């Protein structure tokens, strides 16, 4: 079984969510119920892959060990930078092995969900260092890690937010409202993924056979639409399912195609990913480099920060030329946008004019679509001939 694919998954989802709705309406706690269903799904998903399951188990034990171990060390020794860096690297190790091993024709730690689960663990280590997380029980951390609606591909939730939702018990009216919203999101997400994304996919197949330049342009647009409806559809179903289980998993997309610049785009597209990177990579890089005085101006610091931020984001997708290029491309766009918006008198004078906003939107969309074209790997195929 795979998450959000096939009849078996959705039949079980329907039953699981109906039971959850009954429990929630009776104002009973959904805490351990959600955990139990998540474990059942883990069992079914990994049933066909013993190796994947072994990696997953190791990953969980490793992560829980690191978090509990670091909590104890942090409580004893305080904010020690070197120990902190070691723990961050150790928490990244399984993912790094997973991404690097294919270069050596190996497949280490290749199990469904590893890319997304790693965010949850690294976030906890960083916030333990910050002193924001002081205590986590093994059971609650396990519930956070295996939570099935967002297990395979996000949205990327944060442990403190998740656990606060997990431990609350909603009054009936509030629960019913949340549950209703959840069901609506689930259905809308299904339409996105199974109708609109499927339609865009058909268009891609048709355009792929063409050789004229407008076929490539059309392909880039169709691919962009496919990416959006497929991933926004999945995300919405994940968020909807979470709601029915009483967890308000954050939304992942918010009308990305109305963005007027690239910065705004990253506030609307794959939001939980870009905000995770903002909080745990960009901001920290800027703070660290500012303390160490690596750059002479704010602007340089910001531009370097965008490259680091988006470069790592590209690598995270996979160590392939297309993904790396995609990351650097967006790093460059963000750096250019920042420089232009901070320096240009023309921008400051015209940014609130309607014509300027329309033009800016139109340019942004072309840049975004070209980015998808890079992401799709098509450009590399064309270059390779």
């Amino acid at each position: 079984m795979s998450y959000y694919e096939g009849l078996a998954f959705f039949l079980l989802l329907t039953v699981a969510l109906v039971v959850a709705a009954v429990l929630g309406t009776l104002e009973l706690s959904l805490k351990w119920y959600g955990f139990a269903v998540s474990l059942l799904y883990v069992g079914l998903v990994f049933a066909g892959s013993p190796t994947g399951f072994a990696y997953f188990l190791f990953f969980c034990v490793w992560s829980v060990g690191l978090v509990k171990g670091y909590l104890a060390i942090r409580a004893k020794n305080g904010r020690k930078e070197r120990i902190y860096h070691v723990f961050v690297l150790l928490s990244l190790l399984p993912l790094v092995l997973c991404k690097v091993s294919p270069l050596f024709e190996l497949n280490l730690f290749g199990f469904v969900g590893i890319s997304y689960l790693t965010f949850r663990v690294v976030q906890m280590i960083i916030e333990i260092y910050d002193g924001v997380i002081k205590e986590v029980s093994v059971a609650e951390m396990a519930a956070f890690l295996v939570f099935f609606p967002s297990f395979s591909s996000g949205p990327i939730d944060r442990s403190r937010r998740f656990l606060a939702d997990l431990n609350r018990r909603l009054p009936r009216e509030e629960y019913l409202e949340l549950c209703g919203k959840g069901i609506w999101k689930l259905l809308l997400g299904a339409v996105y993924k199974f109708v609109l994304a499927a339609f865009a996919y058909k268009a891609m197949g048709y355009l792929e056979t063409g050789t004229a330049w407008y076929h490539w342009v059309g392909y880039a647009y169709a691919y962009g639409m496919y990416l959006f409806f497929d991933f926004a559809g999945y995300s919405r179903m994940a968020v909807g399912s979470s709601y029915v289980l009483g967890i308000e998993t954050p939304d992942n997309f918010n009308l990305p195609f109305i963005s007027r610049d690239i910065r705004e785009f990253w506030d609307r597209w794959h939001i939980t990913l870009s905000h995770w990177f903002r909080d745990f990579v960009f901001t920290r890089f800027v703070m660290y480099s500012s303390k160490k005085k690596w750059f002479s101006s704010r602007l340089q610091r910001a531009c370097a920060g965008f490259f680091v931020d988006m470069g790592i984001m590209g690598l995270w997708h996979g160590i392939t030329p297309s993904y790396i290029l995609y990351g650097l491309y967006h790093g460059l766009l963000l750096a250019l946008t920042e420089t232009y918006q901070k320096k240009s008198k023309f921008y400051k004078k015209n940014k609130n004019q309607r014509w300027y906003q329309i033009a800016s939107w139109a340019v942004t969309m072309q840049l975004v679509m070209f980015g998808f074209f890079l992401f799709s790997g098509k450009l590399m195929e064309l270059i390779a001939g």
Partner: protein
Amino acid sequence: MREEVLDLLAEICEDDVVKEDPETELFESGLLDSLGFAEFLVELEDQCGIVISPSEVERPDINTPEKILALVEARR
């Protein structure tokens, strides 16, 4: 303390409006962004010895000078 934090904020936002109107919106208005906020946190630690983690607070909790002041106050 209050003066110090407001001066710092005004310097980072490059606008004295944050001192004149502590209820002014910071993020939507473009006065403060992720970059400015990061630098504010660095300076706050440097000048006042107060450590606030960048992932600790959500945007709606810190979107006016007054809210930032309250947060800093709570940390002293």
